[in-house]
């Protein structure tokens, strides 16, 4: 077991030597206990972030070790949240590292009965094809009175309330330029 173990490190001996006769304190600590360090102290870096759940916008501190998130907790600096988090916010680390999280692109072909793997580049190309085609299929130049519409009804989107402002900006910008108007998010749900 412990390679450094010697007779003198035997707690019974330490009990007597240290006067902790009832063996309750330092005499019985293990090497692991004595060298205990919180992973907040051993992290390579700490990054300030914001909780992804509700709109209170609680500050989070993200602790990174070996390019992996090891801990997410409340940021005491935040005047909004003062370091506190709700159960969901407290579970953020699991949200990031959960074994159930999907990290691979998957594809279900029409009428298919199961997922198939697909590489991301191909997937995006396929989406581009379909985007352009559906955009054309759903295109409306004018309404029945000849007034300009210049839009497509072939493509819709839902989502954005948990996305960044910059992301929503690109989504709205791209879709609007493409003439897609059926762009919605959680705010209307």
């Amino acid at each position: 077991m412990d390679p450094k173990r010697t007779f003198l490190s035997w707690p019974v001996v330490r009990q007597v030597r240290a006067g902790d006769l009832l063996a309750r304190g330092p005499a019985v600590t293990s090497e692991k206990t004595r060298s205990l360090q919180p992973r907040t102290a051993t992290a390579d870096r700490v990054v300030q972030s914001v909780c992804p759940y509700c709109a209170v916008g609680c500050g989070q501190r993200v602790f990174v070790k070996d390019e992996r998130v090891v801990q997410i907790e409340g940021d005491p600096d935040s005047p909004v949240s003062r370091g506190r988090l709700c159960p969901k916010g407290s579970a953020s680390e699991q949200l990031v590292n959960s074994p159930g999280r999907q990290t691979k692109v998957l594809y279900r072909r029409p009428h298919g009965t199961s997922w198939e793997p697909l590489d991301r580049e191909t997937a995006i190309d396929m989406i581009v094809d379909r985007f352009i085609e559906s955009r054309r299929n759903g295109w409306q130049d004018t309404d029945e009175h000849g007034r300009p519409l210049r839009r497509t009804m072939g493509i819709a989107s839902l989502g954005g309330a948990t996305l960044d402002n910059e992301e929503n900006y690109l989504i709205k910008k791209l879709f609007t330029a493409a003439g897609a108007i059926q762009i919605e998010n959680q705010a209307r749900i």
Partner: protein
Amino acid sequence: MQDLANADCIIIQGSNMAECHPVGYQWVTEARLKGAKVIHIDPRFTRTSATADKHVPIRAGSDVVFLGALINHILANDLYFKEYVVAYTNAATIVGNEFKDTEDLDGLFSGYDEELGNYDPSSWAYATEGEGPDASPGTIGGPAAGHEHGHSKSERSAGDEHGSGGPALEHARVKRDETLQDPHTVFQILKRHYARYTPEMVADVCGVSVDDFHYVARALTENSGRDRTSAFCYAVGWTQHTLGAQFIRTAAIIQLLLGNMGRPGGGIMALRGHASIQGSTDIPTLYNILPGYLAMPMVGNHDTWDDYVAAIANKAQKGFWANADAYAVSLLKAWWGDAATKENNWAYDYLPRLSGAHGTYQTTMAMKDGEVEGYFLLGQNPAVGSAHGRMQRLALAELKWLVVRDLNMIESATFWKDAPEIATGELETEKIGTEVFFLPPASHVEKAGSFTQTQRLLQWRHKAVNPPGDCQSELGFFFELGKRIRERLADSDDPRDRPLLDLTWDYPLNEDGEISGEAVLQEINGRHLSGERAGELADMYTDLKADGSTSSGCWIYSGVYAKGVNRAANRKPGREQSPVAQEWGWAWPDNRRILYNRASADPEGKPWSERKKYVWWDEENQTWTGLDTPDFVKTTAPSYRPEPGTGGPAGLAGDDPFVMMADGKGWLFAPKGMLDGPLPTHYEPQESPVQNPLYRQQSNPARRVFPRKDNLWSPSGTAPGSEVYPFVFTTYRLTEHHTAGGMSRWLPYLAELQPEFFCEVSPELAEERGLVNGGWATIVSARSAIEARVLVTERMTPLVISGRTLHQVGLPYHWGVGKEALVSGDSANDLLGVALDPNVQIQESKAGSCDIQPGRRPEGEALLRLVHEYQSRAGVTVETSNQLKTTEDGT
């Protein structure tokens, strides 16, 4: 949020704040420890009620009666804050005499168009200076240029445009009677309108005892005034109704009457549910608005640039909205750069036009009817989280292709193999032609970007690690998608492709090879394009010009990157600054933390009281100053009075604190902007076992209904068949889960805390229906039937409504049917149908009618038979409850 700690009384209604915003609730707790009274008004006794001074149980959907009775109480007993009301609200403003109230027309305001099912609001307009109250209202908000019928406004969900300011008026030359005695003053109209909203009516309609009503009335009025302020907090408990926007309006009227707006510890706090749901309305992924609450152009109304500019704002109106043309031009310059020129009206014609409502529910129906080919789901799980889950899933099965981007394998991505409709035989995996792409996104720590939280505060998140595997941020994905679409179309000479090809899409990459979020935020902030500051970032929205010399992707965010500093990333620790904490993040507009804070000072510019001082006029330096950025023209002295007819910021008098409103005043009466009436008035929900006791008109006559075979409703009120669905159900969230569960049902830490779908019923209802705690129940609505475990609890209280006992069933909606999540179950949203608020097109999911029976639901086809059996017993047809105007026979 932090400002709630300054309140002396907090009324939480339409929100379960302790459960849904626990960390925000710390400020309520703090206020309470300092002695503030906290009252929770809600159908259910929740964790918020448990930690409030008082819980007042109320029937879901009857809030306007309760709040209207408070207004009546305040007016009848002279409890309003007179100086504030006269100076800062439109109480003294005189309304044209064509206006007819619901009290005169049995539940309808003047201007109702039966054919279109909507209002023409021209008769609600203010009377104009120089004309008597008898004068035609034609010149103000009347059918002059730019006037738009309520129907078309509703179609484009115009209510959303007021996210940053009020609607346009032609000008601000209004007539006022500061004695408030003229019968045509808003004040007197208000008094008459709410006269029948008595405590007894509250008892009868809301099920709230007269004593409880007086308790609330006393707490609220005793804690409002010069020295004290009260706050309201609401959430989707108010918005998810066919009368949702009017619920909030009623509270706004109370707060204006009590002088609680624009002051510390006052206001109305909207508690939003998602990390950047505020941001996603500011920079909208919404069909009807452009960034900064500029309208999406509507065919017929905004066909030309001139039409558009004239409609969005009027140079003659007071305040900062008068410059909306500068914001629109700057947006177009940001998007189309050099291709947007004065000659081509800044590429205005590159914008697609709306022709009706294209909200998520209309889109779902179009999808189900085969009109939509492709759909992107970006962190949304409509199969579980949207109203009428069945319709959502059946619609997904009609798509040609679907892109799902989510952290976990949500039900909306797997509907083709495990939707409940497969079990009932309505869908068959092999027959579903939808092609599904599942692309995993980066989590919040795997990308840098800004969220805008519920109080308009932008907070930058730094990136901690790279995303794993194929995971990619939306920023990266959409940048890539746009790039490839543009490459594919590069040789096109089709004019319809010009907007894509002319789009500014050259973003710099950062050291990780990813598109730089900072660069996008800079574009949003805006730049000087020409002139001596060319190339510099805009300092704030007052920099923006309508001459094409500036760009800004979202004018209200202008200033977030002023002087090249990402202010959303400001992180001075809270304990090292004042409680207003202006050096943490950046709030729009102009880093203001409380809007309309000019109202925190009296008309002379002095704080109303030492205890509540916030922003005041510094006589010595002739400037507004205080704890926050003053929300006013900095150098406009309190005594300043503009020349009549002056528009824009210069048109604001020194005592016009509501700088985004067209007349600078807080609106008790909304002459424009609300599509279902200038004053909130009570209507029953679309589906209600209760007859409207105030008017013959049963439900909001301007609500949006969708009479379809797949969207049936139970009979309401006393209509025959209503007894088949005798109970009210309401849906809600729990602390332990997040909406449709995509970010919680896959996590063991959260799943184990609330592992199963349950319904909450009172011991009385349990007794009546034979329901057992821990057992199963089947809940049936006119749309579907679901099963849930039963929690029998005294937290659910039967209410006596019009002499009849009414039971409510509580249903948290986090679970869905599928095989991928750690915990699954039937989805409460399957019970809901689609009926919408006319102002903002939000569905009614807080009140519906149902039956509840002990035991598990049938499976397979038998489930459909059960639903049909109920429908036929109740005599439900497509028309049931879908008449907008209630006719003589009460249908």
